[in-house]
């Protein structure tokens, strides 16, 4: 009978993504609730050295799926290898991070294993061994509670939402044989941004600019740098060509959940609010006191962003120095 919790971690170039620790921590909590074991798997090539980093989050077993064909993510190689490991482990619950890679993998695995999938969940509740998953729909305008039927359920968790909890315990480490199978896709090239750019979906602090910036993002970038955060943009700023698509926060862009979200010159279209409403604290700076963004913000300043935002940068620098 299917039992236990199976967490698929994500690493890139030998470094775990933060959501991996969130997934293992959440996996530990769910496994304890179910009275079951927690298995965490590390997938890649030459990743044996990092597997031990997971121990402090409390898995009972770590599986190392190490194969040259798993060096870079491809849907088919990862799905084949993981489906094989999952079938031999026979878990009841699979948890992974809903990253770009995780969403792609979760969707294909769900079809392969004929399992229900809760995508991009923001909470897992447990009641008598039943899981209720909370997941945003309609770009976060609605939060649905869902239950998954069947012997196996897959839960993809939204990055940056769930807590990382240290819970070190005795743990076995195994390196099972890996079946990569028939692979029809190859990674031909990979180019990474310069190392200091913070990914929006993982950032603790985001400073975003909108139409009110008039395309002059210098002050936004400066405040983001002072706070050690990432730069985001509204759809209109992206449509104007002021920022790349990868910076867009909103229903048709990235959905973010930082500790602090600072909206500069963003009026607050529903489309944008949907992408940032799960932020812990929201600050809005806008010259229009009637801007809808203020109805979703915790703190607001009415004023010219070209005066207020540089002043904020100065004040932050004073505190940090």
């Amino acid at each position, binding site marked *: 009978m299917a039992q236990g919790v199976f967490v698929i971690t994500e690493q890139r170039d030998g470094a775990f993504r933060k959501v991996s620790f969130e997934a293992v921590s959440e996996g530990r909590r769910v496994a304890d609730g179910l009275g079951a074991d927690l298995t965490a798997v590390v997938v890649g090539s030459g990743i044996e050295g990092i597997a031990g980093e997971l121990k402090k989050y409390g898995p009972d077993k770590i599986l190392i799926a190490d194969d040259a064909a798993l060096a870079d993510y491809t849907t088919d190689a990862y799905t084949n290898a993981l489906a094989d490991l999952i079938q031999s482990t026979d878990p009841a619950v699979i948890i992974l991070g809903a990253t770009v890679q995780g969403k792609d993998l979760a*969707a294909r695995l769900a079809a392969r294993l004929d399992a229900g999938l809760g995508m991009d969940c923001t909470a897992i509740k447990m009641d008598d061994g039943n899981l209720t998953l909370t997941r945003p729909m*309609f*770009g976060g305008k609605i*939060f649905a509670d869902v239950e998954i039927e069947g012997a196996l359920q897959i839960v993809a968790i939204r990055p940056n939402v769930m807590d990382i909890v240290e819970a070190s315990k005795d743990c076995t480490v195994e390196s099972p044989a890996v079946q990569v199978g028939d692979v029809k896709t*190859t990674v031909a*090239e990979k180019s990474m941004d310069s190392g200091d750019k913070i*990914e929006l979906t993982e950032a603790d602090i985001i400073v975003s600019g909108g139409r009110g910036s008039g395309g002059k993002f210098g002050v936004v970038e400066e405040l983001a740098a002072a706070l050690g955060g990432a730069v985001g943009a509204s759809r209109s700023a992206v449509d104007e060509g002021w920022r790349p698509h990868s910076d867009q926060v909103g229903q048709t862009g990235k959905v973010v959940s930082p500790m*602090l979200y600072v909206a500069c010159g963003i009026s607050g279209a529903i489309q944008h609010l949907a992408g940032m409403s799960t932020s812990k604290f929201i600050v809005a700076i806008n010259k229009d006191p009637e801007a809808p963004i203020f109805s979703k913000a915790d*703190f607001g300043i009415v*004023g010219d962003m070209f005066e207020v935002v540089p002043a904020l940068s100065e004040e932050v620098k004073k505190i940090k120095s």
Partner: protein
Amino acid sequence: MELVVLVKQVPDTESLIEIAGDGVSIKTQDIKWVMNPYDELAVEEALQIREAQGGSVTVVSMGPQKAVETIRTALAMGADKGVHINDPAAEGSDALATAKILSAALKEIPFDLIIAGHRAVDEDNFQVASAVAEYLGIPQVSMVVKAELLDGKIRCHRTIEGGTVVVEAGLPALFTTQRGLNEPRYASLPGIMKAKKKPVDVKTIADLGIDPSTVGQASRKVKIKGMKLPPERQAVRMIDGESSQEKAAALVRVLHEEIKII
């Protein structure tokens, strides 16, 4: 090049979404329905590929009667023909059942390449296209911002967190779109007129050889138990001051001393 585009009709992203009386669905009466924005990118990409390489573009959609509007929109943009899977038995299908139905329809349509949006902006499942690729046994590349056809394969650029990867897959294949791929064209007036004469094949679940009890609301693995609106925030606290400097200093003091976030 035989191209198939999967499209879905969804609420416009500017729509206000409200929960219906049953607590597990949304009020649909005041919603403006549009083609899923990521599917617009898929239609545009298919049209550009056809313009460069020849072939035909078939648009496939599952949905109630009014979903034909979205198929007509794609035909008005320039797609050649439509397939509309319209059957009450399919209503309420979850992502896997939807993919089962779409892949059954695709077994009757010749294709080299399938293009779909990476998610529909209603349930945000990110799931149907991948499941279709799985059921058809073809490779997939998701969230593509640039696609090039090479001899017998597709070369796709996809943005990942903090970078870009280029993935190649042999045809037949499926890829899903991400913003940045192209700028979808608007349907022209002559395009809209021509679309009225283009063929749309209507199929039922039985036409596709699917047992109706394996799809639809009752077959859902993912059961919606309740819906709620996002948690309300406390009323905004406006930070006042004589000057921008004063306001900024007051805000930073709150963030630093009260909520200790910086």
